[in-house]
């Protein structure tokens, strides 16, 4: 379907697609099997300017926004969600600086990020704080000109590989959610180390580690925003990144769907290609319809965000929820259409199905997304009543 993309948006799509097809598809199975971080591909993305997509021109980026980022993420995800997670998590980690950073912080970090010279990671989750960000136990204590950070972040995407970390820590426990703050911590800071690298079901090319802070001292100026703004920073960051996760869903679903169609045209049973059977056609029809619906929603919400809308929590949650649920359904159905072949590692759909599962879990489980939508509905209903 024609989404009336601008010429530049089509350029971004074509370039991301070219990278996905020429550089990602040939190596995705190997990266998956070995759990190897895709440095070569990251270098290609850097050289192609894709890391600078959503970063303002004054900081060395291309000055594009959510929709352009989503288009790039979708194309990469069509080939490999492990790779696209690495790329998208970089944007996730950058948003706190982009949205709340001072001009000095932006000048210091964004040009390197835009050039792909330094990767970024976002650290919110902990052993006792996932869906419930209020359970955060990592602390940051101001001592003269330095914050001293203590605690452990868990399941951090790009952990160990990234050079810049935007993390949430508690500065004043007595204030509850208003007692959290966001900080920038650079790799190599004394007292900052990495824990074990997780062995995952899917997105195995992406790196997931613990971040361990043991009396890690960072300059006072590394706070993002003001003390107490940590949760606002985190929530606004997630509001901006959810469409990207949705795009991963659209991309992986599209990739799996194409594999299923290709297979169904070739596979002959009862003397006919299986695509001629209505049972298979109906499955493919449902897959194609839900992909198009998800893409429409992602693009519409992205345009809504890019229009400068103030509160996008509900819409971005809807986009993430819908697109990632259909990703799970479509990738599962792609395996089904391909039968025994779909289950084998010889074909890419079993990997796509494993990869798709994380999308319903990370950056807010789809249950949490429903909570976000539900809360917004309650607020809207209350407002309309008065």
């Amino acid at each position, binding site marked *: 379907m024609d989404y009336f993309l601008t010429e530049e948006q089509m*350029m971004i799509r074509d370039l991301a697609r070219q990278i996905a097809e020429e550089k990602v598809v040939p190596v995705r199975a190997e990266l998956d099997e070995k759990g190897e971080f895709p440095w070569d591909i990251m270098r290609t993305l850097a050289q192609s300017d894709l890391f600078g997509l959503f970063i303002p021109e004054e900081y060395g980026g291309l000055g594009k926004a959510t929709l352009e980022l989503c288009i790039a993420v979708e194309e990469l995800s069509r080939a490999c969600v492990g790779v696209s997670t690495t790329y998208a998590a970089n944007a996730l980690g950058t948003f706190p600086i982009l949205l709340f950073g001072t001009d000095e912080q932006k000048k210091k970090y964004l040009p390197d990020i835009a050039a792909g010279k330094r990767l970024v990671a976002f650290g919110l989750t902990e052993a006792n704080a996932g869906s419930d960000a209020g359970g955060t136990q990592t602390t940051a204590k101001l001592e003269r000109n330095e914050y001293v950070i203590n605690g452990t972040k868990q399941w951090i995407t790009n952990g160990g590989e990234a050079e810049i970390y935007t993390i949430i820590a508690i500065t004043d426990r007595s204030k509850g959610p208003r007692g959290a703050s966001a900080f920038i911590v650079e790799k190599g800071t004394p007292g900052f180390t990495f824990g074990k690298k997780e062995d995952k079901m899917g997105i195995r090319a992406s790196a997931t580690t613990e971040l361990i802070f043991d009396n890690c001292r960072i300059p006072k100026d590394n706070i993002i925003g003001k003390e107490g703004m940590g949760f606002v920073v985190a929530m606004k960051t997630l509001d901006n990144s959810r469409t990207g996760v949705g795009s991963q869903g659209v991309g992986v679903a599209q990739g799996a769907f194409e594999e299923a169609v290709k297979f169904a045209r070739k596979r002959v049973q009862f003397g006919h290609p299986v695509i001629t059977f209505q049972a298979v056609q109906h499955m493919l029809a449902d897959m194609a319809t839900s992909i198009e619906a998800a893409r429409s929603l992602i693009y519409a919400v992205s345009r809504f965000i890019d229009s400068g809308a103030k509160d996008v929590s509900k819409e971005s949650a809807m986009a993430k929820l819908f697109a990632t649920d259909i990703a799970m359904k479509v990738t599962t159905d792609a395996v089904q259409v391909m039968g025994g072949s779909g289950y084998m590692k010889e074909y890419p759909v079993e990997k796509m199905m494993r990869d798709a599962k994380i999308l319903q879990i990370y950056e807010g489980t789809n249950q949490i997304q429903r909570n976000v939508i539900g809360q917004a509905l309650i607020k809207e209903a209350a407002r309309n009543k008065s």
Partner: protein
Amino acid sequence: MKIVVCIKQVPDTAEVRINPETNTLIREGVQSIIKPYDMHAIEAGLQIREKTGGSVTALTMGPPQAETALREAISMGVDRGVLLTDRAFAGSDTWATAYALFKAIAHIGADIIICGKQAIDGDTAQVGPEIAEFLGIPHVAYIRKIEDIQANSIVVQRLMDEGSDVVESSLPVLLTVVRELNSPRLPSLKGKMAAKKAEIEKLAAADIGAEEDQLGLRGSPTQVKNIFAPGVKKDRRMLDGPAEVQVDILVKELTGLKCL
């Protein structure tokens, strides 16, 4: 360093078919690409520029639509695209093509000229060396590695049938490159945007001071008598059994056919 890369737009050979009646290529619906060896030439030009500074100009001779090849080169990072286009060039063989490119390069000026080792249509591998001869400068063909580059000299490895030669040459020089040299980069977004806006310089025969009778069909000593697709012989036999037995049968058959 002033670098000129000669490129050629060709139909994507993976998709090309031949019309059996006219014996010509069916070009309709076939995508045009920069011929693969030239992609390595472009990459070589960009890498030299990264080391020495200067500029890379992509030069092509062809119909107006060859402009897209130059834009593709610009999207990879080439500074400037020059299109040599004129009806007078039509029908040029390698000699007349090399003459036209020589005149254009003399007009533009270059310290290093880089060509792909050969085309993927004619496969002659003649144009590069011929340009060098016209220019009266040294050339090194089939280079697989650039070892060193200075203001007035270059050291390269030339691929030979068995191993390779290390060759030092003065500048200006013309190099033709093979696949082993590098892996061509993908375009960048900024490059693509620049390519969209770039002004492609067009040069006609008169602009480069080319003599008319040296160009096109008139300037071409080679005359193509006939082009045809080799017929498929249906008379085929597959041999099987152990290799020694097959060789014996083969020798006997070939002797019988007076091939041996």
